[in-house]
């Protein structure tokens, strides 16, 4: 059982590291800010998520596990917000806006 859990940890953490690597390559190589943001937030969301999931079987206590999950959720929240803010800052003025999109309030 513990061998299976260890195997799960190795696979999940390795996959997470792979996402971080891919995200970094994307950040360096993608052509514009929006696609780079996509690469960056993908690495945070999936890469960190997989690493946290992989580490969960290795923790000693429930509290430590909840702490790991909290780290992931907070990184998700921060990453999503920063992604939105940066995308909003680089979006050329007058570009297409959906009906729900919040423009500057008149």
């Amino acid at each position, binding site marked *: 059982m513990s061998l299976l859990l260890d195997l799960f940890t190795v696979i999940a953490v390795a996959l997470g590291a792979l996402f971080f690597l891919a995200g970094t390559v994307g950040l360096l190589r993608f052509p514009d800010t929006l696609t780079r943001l996509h690469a960056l937030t993908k690495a945070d969301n999936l890469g960190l998520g997989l690493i946290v999931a992989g580490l969960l079987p290795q923790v000693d206590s429930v509290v430590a596990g909840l702490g790991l999950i909290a780290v992931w959720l*907070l990184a998700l*929240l921060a990453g999503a*917000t920063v992604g*939105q*803010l940066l995308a909003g800052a680089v979006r050329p003025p007058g570009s297409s806006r959906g009906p729900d999109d*919040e423009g500057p309030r008149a």
Partner: protein
Amino acid sequence: MSMALAVDAGLALLILGLGLWIIAVRSSFAAVVGFITYGLVLALVWVRLAAVDVAMTEAALGAGLTGVLLLGAAARLPAEAPGGGPSAGLRVLVAVLCALVAAALAAVVLSLPEPAPSLAPLVAENLPPTGVKNPVTGVLLAHRAIDTLLETVVLIPALIGVWALAADRAWGARPGALTPVPSSSALTLLAQVLPPFGILVGIHLVWAGADEPGGKFQGAAVLAAMWVLVVMAGLADLPKVTSRLMRYTLVLGPLVFVAIGLAGIWSAGAFLALPEGYAKPLIVTIEVVLTLSVALVLGLLLAGPPKERA
């Protein structure tokens, strides 16, 4: 063991590379981003050295707060230094002086006797009377309390210095460096969701600081960050610089610290001495009131001098 060595060597190379890059890069914005990254990597180095308290302070204040202040400064500076910047001779001189300082530091570190001189056993021996279990907190608030007192008092002249940059007619207005981001629903959501957790984390860092890594500066930095977030989302206004309540809160921490220190002359025989048996409650009291004052100062430092709203 060799694995740990590989990690340490990687961190050391990363720090050196980042340092070189910060010096070499031309744009001040890029240099500041490099500086923030440098601070975060440095925090990892402190963790590797088992100095978690220092790591948290470095991440929160060295990289976080200083980084934001430098970003603001970089945004106000012109892209090109007027007159093309310092001359080649001056650059070489600065480089030589910096290299000399680095070489002298390296020589001192390498010539330390083995084992290096340390006060750690002395601290461990004298920790029980303070009632706290975190040796860092014990040193900061009992053994070297005068340093900590000056460190917190000096924040107030720093804030006065920032306020002194205000234009005459702007005096009495609200601090103006934190302009709310124009209506962004994502930031509003973050400013509504995150503060309850952030405030809890900040209070936890202060409370846990007695026995585990943490303390007033780390907790105050988190609390200040939450305040700044709410202000930048436009959900709350900063107080005017003339607000009495704010000014009293600013000086409350240092005043309580000094008052307890003066009481020490009468109750324990020396300024800043803590009477036996009451050490821990007094340390926690000082930490709590200082947290309030420090969080307020840190937030106001970021908020900048008062400015008239257009």
